[in-house]
């Protein structure tokens, strides 16, 4: 499950504020049916994505059946099989692990049903059977964060990385992207896993502040919830330092922190937009149009300078 957790729930519609020139639903798919195997029914990121998918389906006139895996890839694998045997015209899948969906994906291929993945990539073998992936470019988010860090620190300084769950695709991408583009002079003091959880980030940040204290020039938190956790710990510590703090997501908390000057920047990842774009991409595939193997969400950096132009993504 590579979805960021425990960020405050925000208005889904605000995602529309993001300037976005995405594809529009294809013609000629009216009356067709799509099976959407979503990660969960009730979740701060997944729910607005589901709403976006529903909105796009309504706009295109396709019938959308949503089934929820409740974060269990086994449930999802069974649901994928049952969607295939129902002979729907297209399947939108939220993969929760690398291989669990392979049997169903093979059956979908045999039945000629196109599958598009949303938010998370499945394993290599699975992705060969998936027409397109629609979601944030997480490696790009890491690269952008590195660029922000380089600029804010003038290419030199000691930083800590507060990473997501070990082994998760999102964590690996965001870490690798950052390490690839960070300046030579940026020294990584420590990389700790806080599982995209604000509370865990608070605990690890207390340790980091105790150990490194005013040595910390910058903090790269792999999502806004963990950035918020660090800021809490910093306040508690009473240390008189203002390190560069970067987050990802675009939550309301992050917006408040940027306005208050506690946080340097975040990157918008609007869930409603993700769901909408995924269904639009799938309808294009169903209509026989060619789409890219990767349909990334635009990564928009929000800083003190442009924050007035945007509304929180969540």
């Amino acid at each position: 499950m590579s979805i960021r957790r425990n960020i405050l729930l925000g208005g889904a519609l605000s995602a529309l504020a993001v300037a976005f020139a995405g594809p529009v639903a294809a013609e000629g798919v009216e009356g067709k049916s799509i099976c959407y195997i979503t990660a969960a029914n009730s979740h701060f990121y997944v729910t607005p994505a589901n709403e976006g998918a529903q909105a796009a389906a309504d706009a295109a006139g396709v019938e959308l059946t949503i089934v929820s895996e409740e974060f269990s890839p086994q449930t999802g694998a069974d649901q994928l099989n049952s969607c295939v045997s129902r002979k729907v015209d297209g399947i939108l899948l939220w993969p929760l692990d690398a291989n669990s969906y392979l049997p169903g994906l093979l059956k979908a291929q045999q039945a000629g049903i196109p599958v598009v993945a949303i938010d998370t990539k499945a394993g290599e073998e699975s992705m060969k059977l998936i027409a397109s992936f629609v979601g944030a470019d997480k490696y790009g988010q890491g690269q952008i964060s590195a660029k922000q860090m380089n600029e804010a620190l003038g290419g030199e300084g000691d930083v800590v990385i507060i990473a997501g769950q070990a082994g998760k695709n999102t964590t690996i991408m965001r870490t690798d992207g950052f390490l690839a583009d960070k300046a030579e002079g940026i020294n990584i003091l420590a990389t700790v896993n806080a599982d995209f959880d604000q509370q865990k980030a608070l605990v690890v940040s207390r340790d980091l502040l105790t150990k490194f204290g005013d040595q910390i020039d910058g903090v790269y938190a792999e999502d806004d919830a963990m950035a918020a956790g660090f800021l809490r710990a910093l306040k508690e510590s009473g240390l008189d330092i203002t390190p560069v703090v970067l987050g990802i997501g675009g939550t309301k908390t992050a917006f408040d922190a940027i306005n208050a000057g506690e946080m340097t920047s975040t990157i918008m990842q609007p869930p409603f937009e993700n769901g909408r774009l995924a269904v639009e991409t799938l309808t294009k595939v169903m209509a026989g149009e060619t789409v890219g193997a990767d349909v990334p969400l635009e990564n928009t950096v929000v800083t003190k300078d442009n924050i007035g132009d945007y509304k929180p993504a969540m």
Partner: protein
Amino acid sequence: MPASLKTLGSLVVRYRLLVMLAGVLVFGGFTQDDFLTLTTFQSILDRAAVVGFLALGLTPILIAGQIDLSIGSVMSLAAYAAIALQPELGSLPAAFAGLGVGMLAGAINAVIVVGFKVTSLVATLATLLIGASLALLISNGQPVSSADPMFGLALTNEFLTVLSPRSALFIAAALVMFVWLKATPSGRNLYAVGSSMPAAISAGINVNGYVAGIFVLSGFCAGAAGVLQALSAATGSPLAGSALLIPAITAVVIGGTRLEGGRGSSLATLGGVVALGALTTLSEYNGIPSYTQAVYTGLILILLITLDRIAGGNGGKTTRTLRSAAVKQA
């Protein structure tokens, strides 16, 4: 008329699975144009296989008046072992290692229940907790992906039109167990153990041996469920069985096997698993959230057990007690 109500009740109870399946099929046929197809049936049977093995292992346990709560945790351990050991052992031996993990866990349950004389509810509650944590500890909380994802894929392929290899295995296992329970002396003795343990002991039945044996069998079945699940998904998840204990118990009870012991059948379990699978598939076709579906399942359970009581049943401890009470009054 209470009498005719009773007759209707007993008919519904006796053919509860057919009534439920018919209900699902009629409703499915009305709400979905393409519900009544062979592919639907194949998908129902295929999804029934994994929880089906858990339920099969549980059937003799319940017949003997015991309970095994650890099956979900044991399944997780077996599923993880079947994939995590692949690099060292190879794909096929790792699968057998998964079965071995299941049997070992079952043997541990047997020792605690028979050797240490701990009630099976408490003993397997303990092994449930230990097994679930152990799976997470060993795996560091992360599922392991198979390096050879194509190895187990054939398990879910189409087989004889309405089956898949794994659902065929499940149905075959249910038939073998049916023959064992109904047509062999050892199977029939098991019913005696569940009906009245003191009576079984005085009849010279090796009660301890039977109880130990069925716990090992239950562990083996949980191992089989884990291995099938892990291979067909090419993933060994430490949470593979964590959510399957309750569906398995539900399927066995809906099938008509009594928690009180002394009554039950593996074919009824087969029916219960398939009926629940059909209900799940129908819900998915209609986009009904899974938590709504749990409400139906609960209501069906209450309805069936209540009808069972109204109709009087034809065996089991409760009715036997009632019968003897009635005899005393007469």
